[in-house]
């Protein structure tokens, strides 16, 4: 592991990679700061720009966007009571009251420091845990890899959806998209409808930008969020107060641990991490009544946990191809765009880039401290950008980005069509991430299935012949039955939120 880190370091600290990490971090904070824009959208829109970059520069930029956006979401959460990202919900609870009480600047500072600490702890966990896990996964044979891909799909489909059926249908949609084109093994056309443009298949980038860039742009236009200039002044309220370190340090320790653990669990996401960390901080406080009324530890817990979720969500994603959240699924798509097949083989076949990417999660977390401190005022003023002007700009940028990759207007038309389908899916609460993951894992699963059948001369029993396969099949069954457990947990978890906020966000 040390050897691989040493190999990756010179690549990581090259001028090009450093530059794009800074750019990614700045862009990430801006995207996270704008209500209605998500991390997934930011990465999806900007991936076409990375096409001409070296893989590590591209991945460094993506790491910057990921970490930056998670902190950026705290800015509108604190100043406007609108979380910029779903993971910023718990930041609202204490962040906004702090801003109303004239401590806006302190709240933003706590959010920044907490995000940096959470990000650093998470990146270190990724560096320590991913390589040994990949080593184990590398021992898997074709049948095990097939079941692993199926487990990944089932997990993300079941966990990311309120209704497992919808999640699984989304995965089926992605699997069909992934199969469109000429079958590489037999040369047969599949799902092409005899349309020549479809024989080459639909690229992962077309799917990513269609699903993640167009629906938010439509939503942004429909909701027409208006931000009052006086609300933004709260970011400058309060003098340069010192931080209550004694209360914050234990909160950071607990919240970063919670964030890392939640991140590893596929599908849980930063919003769950921050809610759990916030409720734990309140539960363990001597005076829990302060929480929800402007407690600095509340902001620290939420922001530390949601950033601690970032890199750790990549642990199952990079090693097993099972993303911890929707952003990790999009990042897997980003890897594919740069010729890197997600899964344990990454650590063997592309070690310098893979380790470089993991290190870039650490470096961008630290860069966030510099970028966030120097650009605080700029990031607040970004909230002045009119949503109604941003919506057509996002569409324009998406179209240009996707065209620039394949010089194909057909791709642009496909992005539009997939975008409209994605918008309809969102309106019907059908998660998008399973579709993306299915496009990534589907072809891999099919190849491994065929290989297994070839080895066993068509005997399907071979798929169930090893103990690892049986464990994976059992896990798939557990996953399929888990919605019942989820319902029970949800009943217990809902009181974590103050009542008014729970009603506001549960209705979304």
């Amino acid at each position, binding site marked *: 592991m040390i050897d691989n880190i040493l190999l990756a370091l010179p690549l990581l600290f090259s001028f090009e990679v450093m530059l794009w990490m800074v750019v990614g971090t700045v862009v990430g904070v801006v995207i996270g700061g704008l209500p209605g824009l998500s991390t997934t959208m930011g990465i999806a829109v900007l991936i076409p*720009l990375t096409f*001409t970059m070296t893989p590590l520069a591209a991945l460094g930029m993506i790491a910057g966007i990921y970490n930056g956006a998670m902190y950026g979401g705290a800015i509108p959460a604190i100043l406007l009571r609108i979380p910029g990202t779903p993971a910023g919900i718990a930041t609202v609870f204490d962040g906004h009251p702090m801003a109303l009480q004239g401590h806006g600047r302190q709240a933003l500072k706590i959010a920044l420091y907490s995000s940096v600490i959470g990000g650093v702890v998470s990146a270190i966990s990724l560096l320590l845990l991913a390589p040994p896990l990949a080593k184990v996964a590398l021992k898997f044979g074709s049948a095990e890899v097939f079941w692993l891909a199926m487990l990944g799909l089932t997990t993300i489909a079941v966990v990311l959806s309120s*209704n497992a*059926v*919808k999640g*699984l*249908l989304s995965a*089926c949609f992605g*699997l*069909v998209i992934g*199969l469109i084109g000429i*079958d590489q*093994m*037999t040369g*047969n056309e*599949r*799902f092409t409808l005899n349309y020549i443009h479809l024989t080459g298949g639909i690229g992962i980038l077309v799917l990513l930008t269609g699903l993640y860039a*167009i629906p938010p*742009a*439509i939503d942004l*236009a*429909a*909701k*027409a969020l208006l931000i009052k200039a006086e609300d933004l002044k709260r970011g400058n309220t309060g003098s340069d107060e010192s931080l209550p370190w004694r209360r914050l340090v234990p909160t950071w320790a607990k919240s970063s641990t919670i964030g890392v653990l939640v991140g590893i669990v596929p599908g849980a996401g930063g919003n769950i991490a921050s809610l759990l960390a916030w409720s734990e901080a309140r539960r363990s406080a001597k005076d829990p009544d302060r929480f929800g009324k402007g407690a600095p530890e509340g902001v620290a817990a939420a922001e530390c946990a949601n950033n601690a979720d970032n890199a750790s969500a990549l642990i199952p994603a990079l090693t097993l191809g099972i993303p911890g959240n929707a952003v990790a699924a999009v990042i897997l798509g980003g890897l594919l765009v740069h010729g890197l097949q997600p899964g344990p083989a990454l650590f063997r076949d592309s070690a310098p880039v893979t380790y470089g990417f993991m290190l870039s999660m650490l470096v961008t977390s630290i860069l966030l401290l510099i970028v966030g401190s120097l650009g605080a005022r700029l990031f607040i003023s970004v909230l002045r950008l*009119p949503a*109604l*002007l941003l*919506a*057509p*700009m996002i*569409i*324009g*940028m998406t*179209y*240009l980005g996707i*065209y*620039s990759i394949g*010089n194909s*207007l057909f791709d*642009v*038309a496909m992005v*539009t069509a997939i*975008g*409209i389908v994605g918008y*309809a899916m969102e*309106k*019907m609460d059908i998660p998008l991430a399973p579709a993306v993951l299915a496009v990534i894992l*589907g072809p891999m*699963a*099919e190849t491994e*299935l*065929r290989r297994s*059948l070839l080895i066993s001369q068509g005997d399907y029993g071979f798929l169930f012949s090893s103990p690892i396969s049986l464990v994976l099949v059992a896990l798939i069954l557990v996953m399929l039955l888990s919605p019942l457990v989820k319902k029970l947990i949800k009943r217990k978890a809902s009181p974590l939120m103050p009542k008014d906020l729970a009603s506001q966000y549960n209705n979304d």
Partner: protein
Amino acid sequence: MISRKASAELVTAIVLMALSLLGLSFVWHYPDASRIMPVAIMITATVLSAIWALQLLLSGRLHIQERPTIDRAVLRRLVVIFASLFLMLLGISTIGFFSTYVVLVPATAWFLGYRNPKGLAIGTAIFCAGLYLVFQVLLNRPLPREVWMLGS
């Protein structure tokens, strides 16, 4: 009166079931080596959409009384943004990216309700200049010729 969202979901589930069955009839005739996954996917999708439809029918959501709550302003903005999606697509294929954006970005924002001429002008200028700088100057990507370049 029935719940609009639930009935839309029911229609979607039925359409998906029909499409999956149709797909199954196609993929069934694929050669052996190419059909394992497509057949499995189509059968799964058929079963899942049937379960989805059944869930909706049994949930009682279809019979919830719901007053029509169409926000005309939201509907108007949706029409504008959907129209802009198609107009942009049409524009870039005929008059080029930047010519389309110079016209359609401010026009869309205007029709969506952003009526600040100075903001529109500055925003559009920065947006187009930024894209030109990145895609033409920095990345040097070949783009369709702009309408004002055709004579040159």
